[in-house]
């Protein structure tokens, strides 16, 4: 079993990550409008929407790459809006970037080690999590000494997620994990994500593939033009007529 995330003052079911009424701009153009979003402990939340809907910006606001112009971002009730990426990562949010972004000429093991950077002083903990990640993704264990760049697309995605887990985050953000994967690999990928969630992780997925994301999520948010168009229980969203027509291609 993957160990319970460190320093978790919030009990299950409490909101640990919260965006309230966030506005955000890119240059002069406003990208996010009054956006509110909540993630509970041990919950999987899916944020879906088309290109340009503001998904990436939402993620960038959470991770600290973009400062919110208005509104607040809190983690465990503490404001993190406006903190730098490094500070936010230290506080327990780790983002698995779009297109995987494996370090191509470092080995699988080295990639994972770099992932544990912020917990580098806890050698024992790192070793433990490394074992857990390798058992979660046996193929990574098999290829531990090959270069990241030589892995297949699916394997790279596993490595990227594994690398994110190495930081032992309170909240794991996944940015378009299905991007560039074939349908079959996408299916497998989301099954992996569900396994991770089942182990008690809190996960926020930002995804274009609405069906796959909602399938594994507890809660869902539909973004359109920088606003939350719909939100609610993932089961309800997947049955929602508007969602089905617009995003599920029914």
């Amino acid at each position, binding site marked *: 079993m993957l160990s319970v995330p460190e320093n978790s003052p919030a009990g*299950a079911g409490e909101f640990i990550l919260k965006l309230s009424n966030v506005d955000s701009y890119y240059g002069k*153009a406003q990208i996010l409008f009054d956006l509110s979003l909540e993630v509970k402990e041990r919950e999987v939340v899916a944020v879906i929407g088309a*290109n340009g809907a503001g998904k990436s910006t939402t993620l960038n606001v959470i991770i600290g790459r973009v400062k919110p112009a208005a509104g607040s971002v809190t983690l465990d009730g503490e404001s993190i809006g406006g903190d730098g990426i490094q500070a936010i990562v230290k506080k327990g949010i780790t983002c698995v970037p779009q297109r995987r972004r494996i370090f191509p000429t470092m080995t699988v093991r080295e990639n994972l080690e770099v992932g544990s950077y912020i917990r580098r002083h806890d050698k024992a903990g790192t070793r433990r999590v490394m074992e857990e990640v390798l058992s979660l993704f046996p193929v990574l264990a098999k290829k531990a000494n090959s270069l990241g760049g030589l892995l297949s697309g699916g394997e790279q995605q596993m490595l990227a997620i594994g690398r994110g887990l190495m930081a032992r985050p309170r909240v794991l953000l996944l940015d378009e994990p299905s991007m560039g994967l074939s349908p079959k690999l996408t299916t497998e990928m989301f099954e992996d994500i569900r396994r991770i969630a089942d182990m008690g992780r809190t996960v926020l997925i930002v995804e274009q593939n609405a069906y796959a994301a909602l399938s594994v999520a507890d809660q869902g948010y539909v973004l359109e033009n920088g606003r939350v168009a719909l939100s609610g229980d993932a089961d309800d969203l997947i049955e929602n007529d508007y969602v089905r027509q617009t995003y599920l291609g029914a």
Partner: protein
Amino acid sequence: MKISMRNRKIILAAILVAFLLPPFLGVNGYALQVLDMAFIYAIAALGVTIATGITGMVVLGQAAFMGLGAYTSGLIMTGTSLPWWLALPIAIVVTGLIGAGLGLISTRIKEHYLAITTLGLNEIFRLIVLNESWLTGGPFGLRDIPTLQIPVMGGGLAQQHYIPLFVLTVLVYALALRIYKTSFGRQMRAIRDDDLAAESMGVNSRAVRVMAFALCSIFGALAGGVFVLTFGFISPNNFLVFESIKMLLMVVVGGLGSIGGTFLGALVVVGLPEVLREFQTYYLAIFGITVVIILLTVPRGLGIIADWLLAPWLPGEEGNALAQAKAEDMSNAATIEEEDERATAVAVRLRSEREQAVVNAPKATGDVLLKVENVSKSFGGIRALKDVRFDIRRGEILGLIGPNGSGKSTMINACSGIVRVTAGKILLDGKVISHLPAWDVHAAGVSRIFQNVRVWNSMTVLENVMVCHAATRDTHVITGAIGTAKARADEDMAREDALKALDLMGIRHLANRRASDLSFGQSRLVELARSIVNKPKLLLLDEPGAGLRGGLIMELAEILKQLRNQGMTILVVEHRVKLVVSMCDRIVVLNLGDKIAEGSAQSVARDPVVVDAYLGGKVERKRRLKAIETTT
């Protein structure tokens, strides 16, 4: 920035006139001489701007071209006593030919490697001039060159040459501005922005690079020639590598790629140290740090000023400025929604057009347009394609699908000439195209779009499309610059067709926008317009729908259907099975470089091999246990 184009012309004219005044105001010979020097270097640096700023080849040897022009004309005048007006053109031609030769090298050696190569050639030039004293006068230079006396101007040589040099500089810059706008200018910029896209869209990058190099050397030779006529003395020390670096400095300080900025850059690099002379031993240090500060604070500063002034002669600047102003007025959300509305409207219009015209649509004839015969491709040890064979029939849409790494993109690259096949061949209309360079493949009638949109960012939308037009494909530098009737007619035709193509995509209103200012969806449409403007026989689409949404997807699908109805044959790589099934007549499935299936959409989708390798099962509708909430 509300000053109109007309007023800018007036401002520019006033500045030009102001430049003519100093000799009449009794400005001393020293200041005039510094300006003379600046004009000469401005001409030479303009060559570097063409090669480095506009075409993207880093040239660190311009001093050698300048020296070549200077020594050739100097030697002709001293050796054969030919007059300067014969010696100078001969020197320019000779240098231009040598430059073209080096241009051939530049097609193989690129970027930093080219920089160091040209630097080396500069050093070789210095050594030859230094050591071949019998010819060049050796280390003490070529000394007895007759200077050009223009007694009408009065005063010393500096005064006499000031106005002729300034007029020459203005003429040369006007010529460069003209070339910039011609088809050749567009090709140079396309290569700089994205040479791979340029090559596969019909730009003969080899010819363009060679010509750009030749132009660079010609401008260098001209500058060298007038240097000789003005100063009457040249030595190896006039043409050291450091001088080449200085010219690159002018180009960069002037805002890389800006023609007008180069002139300002030359004024700064030649003039600033002179102004700082008062600081005696500190002046070079001050100069050095000033350059750093300029580049750190306003990297394009001088270029912006110059381009603003020269806007009436630059492509699309006016429309661009307007569009920018408009974009600033509106919030992003409005443009996104507007864009979506527009796309939907276009889609609706296209659909109704198609439904009306459907009767006359040519049916797929069934004869083979493209034949892929046992094609294999290896990268290093990895075989991306193994013995793949399939046909594309005239008038059909063929879908190419397969998991990541299955070789789809390699296949498209092979068909468009970007990638050389290791074995097998590809035939278009019975002629082998797999050995041709990408631009010849394009000329033969194969056009494409790229997976991650590759437009030429610095160019306007209209220019992006015009680059690919067959009428302006050939590299006619001279006729273009002169503006012969034929060149103008070709240009008009290309513009008209480009606008039509933009119309089809519903984005004609963006024609004068800079491509870098476009949204992703708009860029995709520009790319599509660009790929059909030469009326290709075969269109290769690499994930055309990636990153598009709602209205744009609808529009794209309608456009493709429209194209097919017009008789175009299309090969499309796409991930979204639904889109593929709805769009394609037949489908080829690749897996790990092997073709594993071919046939109608329905038959392929049912093929167990395909299902296993590619489609997989649906994501199971099973969520993790809600019960977990109670576990703690």
